[in-house]
């Protein structure tokens, strides 16, 4: 079951651009199998495989973020700048969808307030992956200092990445 779930998540990732981080995208994943399923997964099947309601969407978002970290290993050079740039470029194709995706992550069901941990965890994982790619040898407190600064840089760069905006007839946003 775990293998099927992972495989379908991988097949869903290319569909995010057109279908968004949605249960519908997950349902469509079976159509991309080598021996395609005749029709999309039912909502019950999506819930069984990936979780109920927005939990399935969170699973997809986490899988997309995991893939983004893997893509960092293919940066053109082993500098922090290029590695982080590679990660930010991965965001470009779905940049309009990211604010809502992160909002979904930080507002889990059953909790009446914003939970910043998923966002902090994401930045920390990106920073750790970046350090791993550049073969950082830090130990002890400097391990934390380096990753904290890289996470802050990545977060700031991500926040300031422009999203597409709708312009009025005069060309103003």
């Amino acid at each position, binding site marked *: 079951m775990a293998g099927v779930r992972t495989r379908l998540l991988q097949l869903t990732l290319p569909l995010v651009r057109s279908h968004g981080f949605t249960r519908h995208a997950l349902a469509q994943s079976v159509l991309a199998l080598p021996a395609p399923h005749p029709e999309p997964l039912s909502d019950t099947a999506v819930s069984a495989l990936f979780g109920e309601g927005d939990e399935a969407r969170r699973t997809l978002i986490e899988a997309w973020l995991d893939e983004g970290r893997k893509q960092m290993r293919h940066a053109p050079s082993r500098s922090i700048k290029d590695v982080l740039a590679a990660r930010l470029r991965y965001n470009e194709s779905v940049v309009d969808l990211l604010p809502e995706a992160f909002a979904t992550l930080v507002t889990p069901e059953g909790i009446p307030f914003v939970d910043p941990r998923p966002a902090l965890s994401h930045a920390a994982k990106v920073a*750790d992956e970046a350090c*791993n790619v550049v073969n*950082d*040898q*830090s*130990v*002890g*407190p400097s*391990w*934390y200092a380096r990753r904290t600064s890289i996470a802050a840089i990545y977060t700031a760069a991500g926040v300031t990445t422009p999203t597409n905006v709708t312009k009025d007839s005069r060309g103003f946003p």
Partner: protein
Amino acid sequence: MLRIAFNRQPLLLLSRRTFATEASSRALPSAVYTNASGKGDPSTTSTPEDITEAQRKVLDAALRVDQAGEIAANYIYNGQLAILGRDRKLRPLIQEMWDQEKKHLEVMNKLQVQHRVRPTLMWEVAKVAGYGLGAVTALLGKEAAMACTEAVETVIGEHYDDQLKELDEMSTSHSSIPLLKEVIKEFRDDELEHLDIAVENDSQRAPAHALLGTVIGGGCKVAIELCKRF
């Protein structure tokens, strides 16, 4: 248990020291980390990706604790030497043990990077507590300093044994885990050798030896549990 064994079987000390001497003439497992021979080898440069999340947490915690332990051990000997550095008999012994711990720490730092382990948040606490423990016990006398070494190395030796059992349960085809087990065995034997040295140098004649050993041993176990988590 080890203490009783040493009281009743002093020959065990000789046999362990003889083994260590023989081992030193062979290439030690940790040598792949301390010299350049292991560069580029996956066993020293990468971490297994085919272990479960639970096993990853076990590996993470194990290496974090080991690294913290070696930091503390370094500073214990540093503290002891600061007080007992003028003792002609103990100085070379403490220096030799400290030099071994420096090598252990060097290897643990490389293992931390290789396996992408988060180092302990108690890093600076380990330094201060280690130095303080070494210096205070040394101020109580040579025997108390040796009792401190005996207590710490007993806990560490048992801890490494427990880790070897955990690693035996790890099913992976990655070559880094068998190497890690060999390194831990080597370090365990080094720590037990330090225990031998401590006993030979009258650790059991320290004032309130049993109380000192219990308190220090208990403190080490608490530190191990804290470093596993933090």
